[in-house]
């Protein structure tokens, strides 16, 4: 199972809509980094509106891909984290510190524009 990555101008957009197993998560990490490299994208939005559970492994993969993308020079914003997911993550002890987030895709794109000074 591969997660589709869409290009919109100099941004990459991802909406995660599948139940993520470990392999899908790792594959996504690799795919996103090579897409950033291939397209020269300066910003990425990963939308999690349809994700109903994030465990510590998926959280680690997401947090890592944000840092990895930053190393390559692309900014990443996570959007659409649902209320039950936010509550569960904090109770679990996963704080995803220093990971930029926004309420939804629209706010995420705005945040990227501000951060990139566009």
């Amino acid at each position, binding site marked *: 199972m591969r997660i589709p990555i869409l290009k919109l101008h100099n941004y990459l957009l991802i909406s995660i809509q599948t139940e993520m*197993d470990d392999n899908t998560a790792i594959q996504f990490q690799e795919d996103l980094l090579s897409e950033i490299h291939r397209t020269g994208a300066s910003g990425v939005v990963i939308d999690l509106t349809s994700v109903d559970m994030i465990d510590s492994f998926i959280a*680690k993969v997401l947090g890592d891909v944000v840092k990895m993308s930053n190393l390559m020079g692309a900014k990443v914003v996570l959007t659409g984290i649902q209320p039950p997911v936010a*509550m569960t993550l904090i109770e679990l002890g996963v704080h995803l510190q220093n990971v930029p987030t926004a309420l939804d895709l629209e706010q995420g794109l705005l945040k990227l524009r501000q951060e990139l000074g566009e």
Partner: protein
Amino acid sequence: MGLLSCVTINNEWDIVKARQLGRECARDVGFSTVDQARIATAVSELARNIYLYTDSGQLCFEQISHTEQKGMTLVSLDDGPGMDDISQMMEDGYSTSGGLGTGLPGVKRLVDQFDIQSEKGKGTEIRAVKWTR
């Protein structure tokens, strides 16, 4: 007591299977969506521990009730290496696998009752109980 359903954990796809069955069971019991997310996450953490640290194990779900209250027990059973030091395993940030080290202490925070029994060389049994509010 209630219906018992189990998933055998042999590979990482079984983690997804356990998570889905756990959520289904939580929905049947009548848990809120927030509690369903808590239970699915706890199941995922327990199933991943079986996958990472043992050859094989089982996760079982049981619907339970006590007077007016309804609930669910998650049982994680494996015949893996057992734990050296349970109190260390329950510390936030402790991991032998390069993970976040949130698994077991995190699960404990997500449920109402949590109990581990582990014997070196024999295996581990974890029972976690969650009640509806």
